[in-house]
C-alpha cells in the first residue's frame, strides 16, 4: 500500500499536465474495474456497476505548481503560481520542470521588512545565460516542487502527499472492494487546484444520489496555531462547512453514523478555506447531495506536507463503510 502511495507521490502532476499520473492510476485501476475512461480534459472515471443508488467518489490528481512566464537575458526564469501556493512557501524551494531540469526559487534583493511578492522572485537553473536557458525551458512550461517522499514509522513527508494519498485511498478501495450494492463511480479529476475545473466536466451527465469528495484539511496542531481543532492522528475529518458550501445534516449525519458504527475515529471540520472541487461537484447537474471527507495534513501546498498512515487507513475504512451500506436505505 505504502509503496503505491510513494510511487504516486514521486510523480509530478501540475494542473494541466496530469497525464503521467493519470496513466499510472488507470493502470492500477483497470484490473479491478468494470470500466475505465478518460475524457477530453484528462479526467479519469472508473466504474464499478451495481443495482443500487449512484455514488460518486472524487479526488483530484493535480498539484499546485509554477508556470514559467519569461526567460531573461541572463538565463533567470520569471514565473507565477498555478494554484494557491503562497510566495513565502515558494521561496527557497527546489523545483523540477517536466523535462527533469532542476532549479531553485530565489528572490531579488529588496527591503527585508516586506514579504517577497512573486514579481520579485525568479528560478535559477544555473544556466550560463539566456541562450542556454532557452534550450532547457520554454515560456509556458511548468515546474513542480522537487521533493522526494519519505516514510518513517507511519509518518510520511513529501510534496502533494495529501492529494496523492487520496488517489491511493480510492485505488485501495477499488482493490479491496466490499461487495457494494451501490453503483459506484470513482472520479480522478484534473485542474482541481484551479477552483475545481476538471470536476465541472467530469461530473457532467452523472447524477449521483450522493457524491463524496476527498480533500486534504489543514491541521492546527503545530506551534503558533490554536491547537484546539484539527490534528494529525485523530482520524479523517468530516466536513461541516467550507467557505463556499454547507454540508447537509443528512449527509453529515450519515457519515458520522458510519464512523460510530464501524468504530472509526473522526474529527469534524468547520473551515474558512475555499471548497474547490467540492463546490463544483455540489453544483453539478443543478445540485448534488454532497459530503466531504478530509485527510488531515500539515503544511499543505508547501514543498513538504506531512500525513500519517494511521489517518489514511482510517479514511479508507470510513470510505469502505460508506460504500458497503445501501444508500437507498439511508435516505438517498
Amino acid at each position, binding site marked *: 500500500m505504502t509503496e503505491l502511495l510513494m510511487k504516486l507521490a514521486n510523480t509530478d502532476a501540475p*494542473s494541466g499536465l496530469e497525464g503521467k499520473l493519470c496513466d499510472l492510476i488507470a493502470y492500477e485501476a483497470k484490473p479491478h474495474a468494470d470500466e475505465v475512461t478518460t475524457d477530453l*480534459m484528462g479526467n479519469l472515471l472508473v466504474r464499478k456497476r451495481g443495482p443500487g443508488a449512484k455514488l460518486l467518489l472524487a479526488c483530484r490528481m493535480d498539484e499546485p505548481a509554477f*508556470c*514559467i512566464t519569461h526567460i531573461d537575458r541572463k538565463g533567470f526564469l520569471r514565473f507565477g503560481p498555478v494554484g494557491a501556493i503562497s510566495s513565502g512557501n515558494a521561496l527557497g524551494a527546489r523545483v523540477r520542470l517536466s523535462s527533469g531540469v532542476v532549479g531553485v526559487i530565489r528572490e531579488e534583493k529588496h527591503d527585508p521588512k516586506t514579504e517577497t511578492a512573486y514579481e520579485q522572485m525568479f528560478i535559477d537553473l544555473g544556466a550560463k545565460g539566456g541562450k542556454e536557458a532557452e534550450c532547457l525551458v520554454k515560456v*509556458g512550461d511548468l515546474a513542480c516542487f522537487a521533493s522526494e517522499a519519505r516514510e518513517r514509522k507511519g509518518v510520511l513527508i513529501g510534496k502533494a502527499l495529501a492529494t496523492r494519498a487520496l488517489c491511493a485511498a480510492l485505488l485501495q478501495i477499488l482493490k479491496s472492494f466490499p461487495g457494494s450494492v451501490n453503483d459506484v463511480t470513482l472520479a480522478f479529476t484534473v485542474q482541481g487546484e484551479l477552483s475545481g*475545473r476538471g470536476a465541472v*466536466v467530469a461530473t*457532467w451527465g452523472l447524477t449521483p444520489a450522493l457524491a463524496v469528495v476527498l480533500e486534504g484539511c489543514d491541521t492546527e496542531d503545530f506551534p503558533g496555531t490554536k491547537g484546539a481543532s484539527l490534528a494529525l492522528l485523530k482520524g479523517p475529518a468530516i466536513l461541516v462547512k467550507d467557505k463556499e458550501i454547507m454540508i447537509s445534516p443528512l449527509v453529515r449525519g450519515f457519515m458520522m453514523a458510519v464512523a460510530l458504527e464501524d468504530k472509526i475515529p473522526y474529527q469534524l471540520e468547520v473551515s474558512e478555506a475555499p471548497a474547490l472541487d467540492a463546490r463544483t461537484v455540489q453544483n453539478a447537474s443543478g445540485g448534488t447531495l454532497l459530503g466531504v471527507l478530509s485527510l488531515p495534513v500539515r503544511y499543505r501546498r508547501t514543498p513538504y506536507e506531512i500525513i500519517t498512515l494511521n489517518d489514511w487507513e482510517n479514511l479508507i475504512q470510513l470510505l469502505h463503510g460508506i460504500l458497503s451500506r445501501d444508500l437507498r436505505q439511508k435516505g438517498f
Partner: protein
Amino acid sequence: MTHRLLEALEAFSNALGVSGNEGEVRETIASRIRPHVDVLETDALGNVIATKKGPKDSPRLVLSAHMDEVGFLITHIEKSGFLRFAKVGGIDDRVILAKPLLVGPKRIPGVIGTKPIHLIFQKEGHKKVAKAEDLYIDIGAKDREDARRLVEVGDFAAFATRFQDLGNGFVKGKALDDRLGCTLLALLLEEDLPLILTAVFSTQEEVGLRGAAVAGFRTSPQIMLALEGTFAGDFPEERDVSRAAVIGRGPVLTHQDRSMIGDPLLLETLIAAAEKEGIPYQFKRPLLGGTDAGRMHLSRSGARASVIAVPARYIHAPVALVKIEDVVNTYRLAKAAIQAIADKDWPS
C-alpha cells in the same frame, strides 16, 4: 480586406455597449452579420448566437468575441445635478479623471470633473489617487430635476472617444477590447467556411465572463476559440521581465491565463496554421487575464479551447491603440485556424 476590417472596426468601436447594456452594439453587429448567417438569435443574457452552414458539421466549432466594454453605471443623482457612478469592469481609477463620457440612451455628453491643480497643490492633493466613489459626472445640469429630464439612475456611461485612423499604420478608438474580436468574427462570417460555424457575440465578459457561461451551455462546443484584444506591454521598462505582448509582432496566442489552461493540441494546430501561412505570431505572458474561453471550455462535457488575440496598447482606458498590420494578421490566422480545425482528425 484591410478597408473592410477598418470600416467594421470603426462602426463597432464607436457603438456604445457597456457590460449589462450592450443593446446598441448588439444591433450594430447583428445588422451587419444578418445577411451572411443562417440563424441569428439573442438569448436571456443578450448574447447574439449566430450559425452559418458549411459543408462539414464536425467538429462542433464555436468562435466567440465579447460585445461589452468597460464603462460606468449611474447610481445616484445629487440634488445639485451631478451624477454619482460605479465602475463597470476593471478600470483603473487613475485613468478616468478628467475624461469625457456619453451618458444614457440619449448619449448625453458629460465629463468626469476634478478640482483644479491650483486649488489642491498646496495640500498635495495631486499626490493622492482619486477613487471612483468620490468622483462625479457633470452633464451641465442645474439641479436634480434638470438632470432627470436627460438621464436616469441606472443609465450607463461610456468613454466618448471617436475612432480614428492615425494615418501612420495605427488606429485609435475605445473598446478595442473586444470590438477587435467582434470585427474579426463578423468578417469571418462573410466568408465561405469549410464547416458549420457557431459565432457567439457575448455580453458581460468584463464583469465575470457571464454571457459566456450560458452561451457555452447552449452551444455546447467541442472546439472553441475566443477572439480578443489583449494588452501590449511595450512601454519603457527597465527590468528584464515579460512584456505580456508586443505591438507589431502579430496575433497573440495563449498557453494559459487566469481563466483557462488552453488545450495543447489545439494550440499546436494554431501554431502550425500560422507557420504554414507565414503569419507572424507571439505568445502572451502566461497567467494574465481571462477570456470567454475560460467559461466555455467547461461547458457540459468540455471543449478544447484557445485564444487568438490582437495586441493593443491601453485597453480598459479611454483610448486604445492598435497596429493595422496586427489586425490583418490576426484575421488571417483566425481564418487559417478554422481551415486547420476543419481538416484535422480530432481524437474523441
